[in-house]
């Protein structure tokens, strides 16, 4: 039963602390007691923060928003895995019951490429936005669209586009990549837009510009380790990268 329970557990958290981008970071360990196994990991951090606040200690800064795995705001490395050890989920979807036997969790911010720690577990991921600015759109201005059903999109194509478009831009792929590459992120957008008839017209320009932007932003080039695929909370596959490379060759 998952309604309000009286069970509780405790866990040790070893968390990366860093005051500002310029300062040096370090790990600090905390013991979180009396937390319900039904609480989420972020709620455990919330309650730790409340305690720290009342003790006049600096709370842990971490970013999160929707807390249902769709906005992509949250995310850090948990015991060596971006978004934790379970496939297909974001950090905010982790519940303490999943860690009942863990004992210790080590939390470290996403790193890699141009990602820069802003504070504690919060990271600057604006590089991803600039990749989108380079071409992650269809150039159609408001008012100029044709009647929706005049563009027929086969069901399987729409599904395939959706699978790629499901990317939430959390940056876990970058954090997991030994090269700090944003190839999965970039490829997902290239695939989403390039396979749809609406996006075909500028597909070559899009592919070239986005791939160039990725490198110029300071992300690594992909060398096909495949690590991104294993941490992607939306299970976006290496097939998107395959597609983007193929498109890249003719762009």
């Amino acid at each position: 039963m998952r309604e309000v329970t009286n069970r509780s557990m405790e866990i040790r958290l070893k968390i990366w602390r860093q005051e500002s981008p310029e300062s040096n970071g370090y790990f600090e360990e905390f013991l979180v007691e009396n937390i319900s196994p039904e609480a989420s990991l972020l709620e455990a951090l919330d309650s730790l923060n409340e305690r720290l606040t009342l003790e006049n200690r600096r709370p842990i800064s971490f970013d999160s928003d929707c807390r249902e795995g769709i906005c992509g705001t949250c995310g850090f490395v948990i015991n060596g895995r971006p978004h934790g050890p379970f496939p297909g989920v974001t950090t905010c979807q982790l519940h303490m019951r999943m860690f009942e036997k863990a004992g210790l969790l080590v939390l470290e911010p996403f790193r890699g490429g141009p990602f820069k720690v802003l504070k504690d577990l919060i990271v600057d991921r604006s590089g991803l936005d600039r990749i989108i600015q380079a071409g992650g759109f269809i150039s159609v201005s408001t008012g100029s669209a044709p009647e929706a059903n005049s563009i027929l999109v086969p069901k399987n194509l729409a599904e395939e586009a959706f699978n790629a478009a499901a990317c939430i831009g959390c940056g876990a792929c970058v954090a997991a990549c030994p090269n700090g590459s944003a190839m999965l992120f970039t490829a997902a957008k290239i695939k989403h837009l390039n396979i749809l008839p609406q996006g075909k017209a500028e597909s070559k320009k899009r592919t070239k510009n986005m791939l160039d932007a990725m490198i110029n932003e300071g992300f690594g080039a992909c060398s096909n380790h495949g690590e991104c695929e294993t941490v992607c909370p939306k299970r976006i596959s290496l097939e998107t990268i395959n597609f983007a490379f193929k498109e890249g060759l003719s762009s």
Partner: protein
Amino acid sequence: MSKISFLKLVSSSTGLFIILFLILHVSGNLKYFGGPDSLDNYALFLRIFGKEILGEYTFLNLFRIVLVIAFILHIWSTYLLTRYNAKASPQYESSLAYKSTTFSSKYMFVLGILALSFLVFHILHFTLGIIHPDGFEYLKVYNNVTISFKNTIYFLIYFIGVTVVSLHVSHGIWSAFQSLGFNYLFVKHARNFAKLFAMFLWIGFLSVPIFVYFFK
């Protein structure tokens, strides 16, 4: 074409070309088991191939030039790609638990440098005959192979060198397919197949040294 598309195209296609050459090379090596005549005649055949049209050695040298160019391009493009990767590579304070990264994929560049050193040694040894054990006679291929691999140091160098090349290929071949955008269903299987292929290559290349060192 974007910068990385171009570099990927160059590194992948040259890589695949070199792998094709390795397949030719290993099948040539196996002629050792056919005895001295078989191997020496094969070596002679390579020398005089296309002789009527181009003259002796010409074809072989042309092939060598193409190979050298492929190697240079391969090294140049992978060097640039690796530079991007190294710059962007994350510096974690705790250790990251990798799931699909392999030893080969992670150390591609290092393996590449080692393979290159091995290649230089190999050319100095067999092709040019500059470094060699006693009794080495230029153009007497069967004899040279035999005395080289009877020598423990040479045997070990080749053992390590071939292992390095195989490891490099085991990631390189499927990575090249992926980077060239081959059909993904094929690529997905190629990922496992690549390891098998690399193992065959390893066995193929090492069969001669092992046979010589241990059984001859």
